[in-house]
């Protein structure tokens, strides 16, 4: 009788232990993080309260709240500068990270305007290696009748998975910007790059409101 009860409790205890361990592990999985972020973003984009161009700013603000904390902005900025990062002062690094984040934000927010609820997302697989991970997904756009591969590269910072690169159709965002920035930096100067980023931001500012 006694031993049976002990056995029962042991199994129960083990199950709870495994369950909680597993819940922790699952919640922490990079793929789940990506999936949850995509689903939260979809919810906002499909929310009747945020429809139409009148609500564009609110909608984008809400998406930003969900998406931005998932990105490791400084790591991305660092990687796009490549060998030139180490020559920058702490202040310049901050300035550049801020400018670059603003650019990516502005550029990609206009593609959110083209979102339709028919778009399908597939979360295929993840690879985890120590503090680094890759998550393979696909996006099917029925308007174009085309499937795009989207791979996320993540690293773990203080126990949290953060995105440091997005590879769309085999083109890495970080590598692509690094090539652009290295071309500018090798020909002119860091100041020129900052100037070009600011000009670009102004262009995007004047272009995007009329679009929506």
């Amino acid at each position, binding site marked *: 009788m006694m031993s049976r009860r002990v056995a029962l409790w042991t*199994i129960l205890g083990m199950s709870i232990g495994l*369950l909680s361990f597993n819940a922790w592990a699952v919640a922490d999985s990079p793929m789940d993080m990506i999936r949850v972020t995509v689903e939260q973003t979809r919810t906002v984009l499909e929310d009747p309260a945020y429809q139409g161009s009148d609500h564009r700013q609110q909608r984008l603000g809400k998406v930003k709240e969900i998406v931005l904390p998932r990105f490791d902005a400084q790591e991305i900025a660092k990687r796009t500068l490549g*060998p030139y990062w180490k020559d920058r002062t702490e202040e310049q690094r901050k300035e550049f990270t801020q400018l670059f984040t603003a650019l990516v934000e502005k550029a990609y927010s206009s593609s959110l305007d083209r979102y339709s609820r028919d778009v399908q997302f597939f979360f295929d697989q993840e690879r*985890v290696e120590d503090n680094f991970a890759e998550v393979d997904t696909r996006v099917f756009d029925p308007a174009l*009748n085309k499937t795009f591969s989207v791979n996320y*590269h993540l690293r773990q910072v203080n126990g949290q998975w953060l995105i440091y690169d997005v590879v769309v159709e085999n083109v890495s965002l970080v590598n692509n910007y690094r090539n652009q920035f290295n071309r500018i930096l090798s020909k002119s100067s860091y100041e020129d790059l900052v100037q070009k980023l600011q000009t670009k931001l102004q262009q995007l500012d004047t272009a995007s409101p009329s679009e929506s």
Partner: protein
Amino acid sequence: MIIKVLLTITMSLFISSFTISSVKAQARASLEDASPPPTPDPLEWFNQPMFQFNLKLDEYVLRPVATGYAKIVTPPGRRRVDNFFKNLMVVQRFANNLFQGKFPKAGQAVGRFFINTAIGGVGLFDVADDWLGWKDSEEDFGQTLAFYGVSSGPYLVLPFWGPSTIRDTAGLAADAAMNPMNYLLSTTEALAVNSGLLIGQAVNTRSLNLDLFEDVDRYSVDLYGAVQDGYLQRREKQIEE
């Protein structure tokens, strides 16, 4: 009963956690590698003007024509036209799969041509893919050269055509030489038919990607560098596969 349920739950959770950790491995040395060397571009003196020329050509000719065409022909119609053009590339697909020892794919390329031509309305419908799952394998002679260890050589922007490399340009010439039109028609006829087909395909492809270029332009700070890197990254992956 409870124990059984608990055991099942425990087991399934255990197995699921196992599968999560087992996909872990697949070593990738470059996961952390932050800065590969910058892309060399010894031919930039030639590429830069060609790139500008292509931009103007697109802005004043290709894009307006493709926009007008897109207003007349619906997207599904244009996708069918795209299928039609791809179906004509059968010799190139077959030969380059064969050269790389991809025999089943070489066979599929020929199979695709006959099925799509006969049942798919002279290639307008890609029934071979829809029904049999025989995908179009986009092999070209540039990839064949890469398969035999020829390195890409410098980046090269071709007028009218766009981004390429020395190797891929040689590949283009070889693929063009394989074009059956050259053997079926006289030289002038072949030239007329081939350039007509090329222009038609360019307009149709552009009409299917009207926003694409504008997107790249919006996202980039240095358009030349963005297009160069985009081409090279995608090409590298294509060759890997």
